[in-house]
């Protein structure tokens, strides 16, 4: 078994707000190994992005309170580490890319200047070395005229181009872990395909692990080796992607797949999930999905643990699976 690069154990997090607190993350456990592409899937309010931002220590310090649990990044305690020690790691060994490339780049500086300053800082190179490294990175991202692109401003480039630049930057120091938060949601379908192929290549080449956050089940099914499904701040199902999608064992995962247009008949109504996501300020006791579940029964008033199922690393947090 290859080494674990990210391990979150039983993390519970809350955001104090006016009038109480939002229990954002509720006993979440997940892990990512070297060279794996792991998907984190969920709808709004599932806390998938929050979990990722916690792992990168990108949440503002006063905004949250950790009630329990640990986060280990590359074997080190991410919460206890000092800010400067983590800063060393972040950007070099652990990087993140986001949905909107335009806001990640400074619109008033040329792309080359931004890339060079990042590369020079993390890899301790001088300007010339950084520039040639930048050109190499862009070329590996299938960007023709890399030198020309370095001279452009971000707004002059297309969304797909910008995202490829950011991915290139993310891989500048050959990180061990890349966290990608909906990196292709804002891109056209053909560009998305290209970006994902590039990511796959990098994974193979550098043995980088990817934690891929998305709400697109079809995308995740074609890109991720393993999958975690999140709902209202907890992991409800986990396992190899194709297993989870072919044979979902949690009612939420089942309902989600049924609600897809692909699962429906054109012209006939789709099967939606009744009710709405519970507000995180007042989660119901017991299973968070209870009120929307077609199979709820007596035991569901108690919060179900993640039951291990047959198959490798296969889990579902539903009392039905106790048999």
């Amino acid at each position: 078994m290859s080494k674990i690069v990210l391990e979150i154990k039983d993390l519970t997090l809350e955001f104090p707000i006016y009038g109480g607190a939002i229990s954002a993350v509720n006993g979440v456990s997940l892990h990512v190994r070297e060279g794996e592409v792991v998907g984190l899937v969920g709808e709004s309010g599932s806390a998938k992005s929050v979990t990722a931002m916690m792992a990168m220590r990108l949440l503002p310090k006063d905004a949250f309170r950790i009630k329990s649990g640990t986060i280990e990044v590359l074997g080190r305690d991410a919460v206890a580490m000092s800010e400067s020690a983590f800063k060393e790691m972040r950007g070099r060994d652990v990087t993140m890319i986001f949905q909107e490339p335009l806001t990640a780049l400074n619109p008033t500086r040329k792309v080359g200047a931004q890339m060079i300053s990042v590369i020079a800082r993390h890899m301790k190179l001088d300007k010339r070395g950084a520039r040639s490294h930048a050109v190499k990175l862009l070329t590996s991202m299938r960007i023709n005229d890399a030198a020309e692109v370095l001279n452009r401003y971000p707004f002059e480039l297309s969304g797909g181009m910008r995202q490829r630049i950011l991915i290139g930057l993310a891989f500048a120091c050959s990180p061990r872990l890349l966290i990608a938060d909906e990196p292709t949601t804002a891109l056209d379908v053909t560009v998305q395909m290209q970006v994902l192929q590039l990511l796959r290549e990098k994974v193979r080449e550098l043995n980088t692990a990817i934690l891929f956050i998305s709400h697109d089940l079809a995308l995740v099914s074609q890109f991720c080796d393993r999958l975690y499904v999140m709902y209202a701040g907890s992991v409800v199902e986990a396992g190899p992607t194709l297993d989870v999608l072919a044979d979902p064992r949690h009612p939420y995962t089942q309902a989600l797949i049924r609600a897809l247009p692909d699962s429906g008949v054109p012209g006939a109504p789709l099967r939606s999930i009744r009710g709405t996501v519970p507000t995180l300020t007042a989660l119901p006791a017991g299973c968070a999905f209870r009120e929307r579940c077609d199979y709820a029964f007596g035991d569901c008033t108690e919060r179900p643990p993640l039951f291990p199922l047959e198959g490798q690393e296969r889990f579902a947090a539903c009392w039905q699976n106790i048999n």
Partner: protein
Amino acid sequence: MTATVGSNVILALSGVSVRFPAGADWLGRPTTHVHALNGIDIDVFAGETLGVVGESGCGKSTLAQVLLGLVRPTEGTIAGGSAGMQIVFQDPQSSLNSRMPVWRVITEPVFARSRRPVGELRRMAMELAAKVGLREEVLDRYPHEFSGGQRQRIAIARALASDPDVIVLDEPTSALDISVQAQILNLLQEMQRERHLTYVFVSHDMSVIRHMCSRLAVMYLGQIVEIGNTASILGSPRHPYTRLLQRSVPKLGEGKLNGKMESTELPSNRRLPGGCFFLDRCPHAVDLCRRPQALVDGVRCHRASVLTEMSSQ
């Protein structure tokens, strides 16, 4: 595409092109133009749901604006009721004014044109809200207090307020979660049945298109490159661009993606290519492709039938 005798064509575009001036010299005269639409011929039939797909720069937003009367075509004609048309936008955040209470948001199409007493407007709002599945309490609240799905319901109620015949839907569910999307799509279908509406459904999501649209138009660089029955286009795409799109769309449970890396750079729409617009990205290009391609039998590619034969061998 000519309308067949006896059919009910509610909108017809003929040779529509739209150019926007771009760049200015020191006298303020435009230096180049952005060619958003390049010769669109399309008929929309009453009661259908026509899908429009394409990627950025294909002109689908401009097409929507032309249909709604927001933009005048530089060339070509539109026939049909732009009076009875409404729109539902993609972004539920910016499509509703958060400074107006929901009952005013919903009835704005009505009181924007004529003065009505408040009581009448509120009653109208209540009826429409109930139709789209919103509770009465929402009427006095403000849009920013609601989730994306609820805001889209408000937007749909607003679109229905002026009793339109045609509604243009511009990516109405792209910003929504899967479960909410299902509810909204169901609502749209129900409204269509109840009120005999015609939809023009712009989207980049193939699975939504397949579910909602009976006919489909594929756009590339301001032209329609393929048009016809949705199931047949998605099942056996004929135009090389449609094929590329189909290949790139992730499908559930189809195994890991692999495949050749295609070039994805769109040609500029400031200086249009001479012949087929897809020429430099097409793996099957031949000399004849340097001539402008006409839309024949629903596809804009003179090699379409040859390629279909090739791929079925």
